[in-house]
């Protein structure tokens, strides 16, 4: 199965001190991975205030995934010195997958306190997700400090387009604590810790490992086998600092992630949003990511099969760089047009401190997004 992720619930940005307004928008995201995978995703969203105390937000999107996905890791090829070379092989027919998703959020304000409930649904041929969340927000000291606490739960069903008998549950509970603090008239910081506890089916039924051994003419073919639980923690800190003289804003995001699969990951993004007159702005950004492999990651299937083993390179040790550029135009009519283009480069050599997984196949992809929105 393609690896499942947590889908972030819709959260339109709330600017400190700004008047609340409604907003509607449409965007299209495109992603193309070196001739393999192509994704297009139209997305529609809406946010509106209802009276003084109520606020609603909703979004819907359709992911269309076409192309071929690497499904087999093998060491069949060898270098001239006999050293094993690992290769990803595309097996089976090309994929053509469609995922529809929708979410809604209702917020009730009680003065400095706000309570939100959310609901999210996602459907695709081999994966179904139903989730809800509750979030509380408390403004202190005239909104100089904002405390946030949240709980969410998702009940997912994992299926397979190649195995009709697979219909397994995966349940996840999430907890979140956060604080947003104004540091000065020009700067603020937000720090959030989220903890997730998952139980259920995590194996990817589309991933296989085929390993050859010199002393055995019969290769080992191993399915993807992962633990039946996943407990994780993510700590995200965001810093914003405006420089009035330069007319620009520094944006720095750092996230530390760890889980009980042995994965340790860091993501750091720095961006500079520069205003060009009243209507235009550009935002160059650079994101760096590095992760340590899962304990059970191995591109080789052992002859004596362990209880858990996966050659999925998304569980390997690697690093990644992604530069991007966003251009924004704010029209007099109130429409905001945004265009973003980016490049993604993941490689073993980019792993922090070196020592990325040797079998990791370099990933190169381009992505872009066009968005039109309007406040009302």
């Amino acid at each position, binding site marked *: 199965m393609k690896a*499942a992720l947590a889908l*972030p619930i819709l959260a339109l*940005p709330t600017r400190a001190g700004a008047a609340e307004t409604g907003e509607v928008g449409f965007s299209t995201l495109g992603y193309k991975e070196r001739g393999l995978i192509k994704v297009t995703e139209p997305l529609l969203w809406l946010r509106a205030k209802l009276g003084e105390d109520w606020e609603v937000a909703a979004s819907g999107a359709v992911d269309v995934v076409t192309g071929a996905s690497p499904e087999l890791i093998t060491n069949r090829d060898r270098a001239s010195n006999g050293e094993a070379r690992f290769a990803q092989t595309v097996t089976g027919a090309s994929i053509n997958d469609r995922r529809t998703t929708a979410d809604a959020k209702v917020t009730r304000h009680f003065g400095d306190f706000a309570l939100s409930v959310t609901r999210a649904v996602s459907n*695709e041929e*081999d994966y179904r997700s139903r989730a809800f969340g509750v979030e509380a927000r408390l403004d202190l000291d005239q909104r100089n400090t904002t405390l946030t606490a949240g709980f969410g739960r998702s009940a997912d069903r994992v299926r397979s387009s190649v195995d009709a008998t697979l219909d397994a549950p995966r349940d996840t509970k999430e907890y979140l604590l956060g604080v947003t603090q104004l540091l000065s008239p020009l700067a603020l910081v937000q720090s959030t810790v989220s903890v997730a506890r998952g139980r259920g089916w995590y194996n990817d039924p589309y991933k296989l490992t085929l390993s050859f051994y010199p002393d055995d003419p019969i290769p080992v073919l191993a399915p993807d086998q992962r633990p039946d639980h996943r407990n994780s923690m993510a700590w995200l800190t965001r810093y914003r600092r405006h420089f009035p003289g330069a007319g620009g804003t520094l944006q720095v995001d750092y996230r530390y992630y760890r889980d009980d699969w042995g994965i340790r990951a860091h993501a750091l993004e720095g961006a500079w949003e520069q*205003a060009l007159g009243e209507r235009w702005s550009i935002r160059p950004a650079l994101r760096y*990511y590095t992760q340590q492999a899962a304990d059970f990651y191995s591109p080789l299937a052992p002859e004596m099969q362990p209880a858990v083993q996966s050659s999925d390179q998304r569980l390997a040790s690697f690093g990644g760089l992604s530069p991007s550029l966003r251009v924004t135009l704010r029209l007099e009519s109130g429409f905001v047009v945004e265009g973003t283009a980016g490049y993604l480069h993941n490689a073993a050599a980019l792993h922090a401190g070196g020592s990325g997984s040797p079998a990791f196949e370099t990933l190169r992809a381009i992505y872009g997004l066009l968005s039109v929105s309007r406040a009302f």
Partner: protein
Amino acid sequence: MRPRAAGWVALVAALVAAGCAHVPAYQRGYLARPAMAVEDSPSERAFDKTFSAKEAASGGTSVGGGGCGCN
């Protein structure tokens, strides 16, 4: 949460609290700029999924969003 992690969280919270000033509402003009937002727009959330579909790590921004069988 493990005691060590809780300690780091408390340390960051203390540093933040120690380094901040009270900003009255009439001085928040710059803080209200869109570039100062700390919550992702729907478009930015779509980018999060672009990265997390190729990485093992995810999350940290919200709860209750559900999962997907993303490639």
